[in-house]
């Protein structure tokens, strides 16, 4: 055991954690909206809209995240037309490519989580709202969404942890996130175990925090209140 290496690499890895957290929070933020949007499309009665939303979630859940990042980072740059548009400002940066890929990926999983949450809402609740003369829009925003959030918290907590682990793939497109820096230190010092303990410890700590945060929220929004 090389404890000196563990101590000296800790600040470097902690610095890289900032990038991991930035990637995670940005993709979760955009992914939540995307997921909500597609969950609503899934509930649409029009079969084409419905199928389109299903296709989106099927493709992004059925392929590895690595393929998705590579298509966006290496693949889209190949289209000449894209290079001349404003989009190129975003797509030439690996940072934004990673966020786009993560957003699309987590959006697909989130849409499934939210859809099943919407479907478990008892029709009686919606009917009760209607018979009280509440408009459809308010039923949706004030009744359906809060119940759906409550229902989907445990599953969404898992998704956050999965996404946190997913951000490690950003290191494959040259980003120096926690895993990227860990790999760099391992390949220069050839001390994989020491670096794994420190980097893994940081990841576990984040998992622990997220896990407890979700537990707290679950309690706060539970039906008992």
């Amino acid at each position, binding site marked *: 055991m090389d404890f000196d290496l563990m101590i000296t690499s800790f600040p470097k890895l902690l610095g890289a954690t900032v990038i991991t957290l930035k990637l995670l929070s940005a993709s979760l933020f955009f992914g939540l909206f995307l997921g909500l949007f597609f969950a609503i499309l899934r509930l649409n009665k029009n079969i084409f809209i419905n199928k389109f939303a299903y296709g989106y979630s*099927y*493709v992004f859940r*059925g*392929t*590895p*995240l*690595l*393929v*998705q990042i*590579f*298509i966006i980072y*290496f*693949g*889209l*740059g*190949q*289209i000449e037309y894209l290079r001349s548009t404003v989009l190129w400002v975003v797509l030439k940066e690996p940072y934004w490519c990673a966020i786009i890929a993560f957003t699309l990926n987590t959006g697909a999983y989130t849409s499934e989580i939210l859809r099943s949450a919407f479907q478990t809402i008892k029709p009686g609740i919606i009917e009760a709202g209607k018979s009280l003369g509440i408009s459809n829009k308010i039923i949706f925003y004030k009744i359906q969404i809060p119940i759906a959030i409550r229902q989907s918290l445990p599953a969404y907590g898992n998704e956050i*942890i999965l996404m*946190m*682990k*997913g*951000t*490690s*793939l950003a*290191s*494959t497109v040259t980003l120096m996130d926690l*895993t990227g820096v*860990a*790999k760099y230190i*391992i*390949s220069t010092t*050839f001390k*994989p*175990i020491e670096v*794994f303990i420190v*980097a*893994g410890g940081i*990841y*576990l700590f984040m*998992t*622990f925090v997220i896990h407890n945060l979700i537990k707290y929220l679950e309690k706060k929004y539970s039906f008992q209140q």
Partner: protein
Amino acid sequence: MELLAFGKTGWGDELFYATLMTVAVSVTAMIVGFLFALIFTPLKLSKYKTLNFVGNFYTTVIRGVPELLVIYLLFFGGSGAIMYVASIFGYYEYIEINAFITGAVAIGIISGAYSTEVFRGAIQSIDKGQFEAAKVLGISKFVQFYKIILPQMLRLAIPNLSNVWQITLKDTSLISVTGLVEIMRQSYIAAGSTRDPLFFYSFAAVLYLLLTYISMKLINKLEVKYSRGY
């Protein structure tokens, strides 16, 4: 389409073999994972706190740390660890483990953690009376497990194991970083030499979709088989 031709002119045959490699690694990793689950599920269900701790430590660490980090640990540390063990037995030559074994073991350790959780959940949801009834009838522990617990457990475990299989299948794309030529690595090579990454990575995505689709169909059949009588 020329790009996908078989033979020397295209990448069709290479990608075909790469797909077989992905399937081979996934199946091996799944089996390695079952072996890990076989060790750690009893630990998690054990009466003893220390054994419980060991089981929980494994599943918590592996499920809380990115897959890529586990792969790097084994890729850079695997042969070192084996050489260390070998040196105890007096063997000091350089040992290199091939990429297939490194990959299958790395992904196996990960899928094992998920399988352990699935088996633990399945065993715990079997009614206590079943164990007691078997005991009262004087059935040996071995027969009790194979004839009474296992068949009931499988029915409950298969839907969740199918999720583990999907995760494992997708995780194998990560071992392309170690140089094993599976779908992802082959697409990377093809994309590099033809300068057509968009096509090859999209094609890789199609191959993965195909694999997940076919395995879903097969697993559904298994599910029907094991839930007959319900």
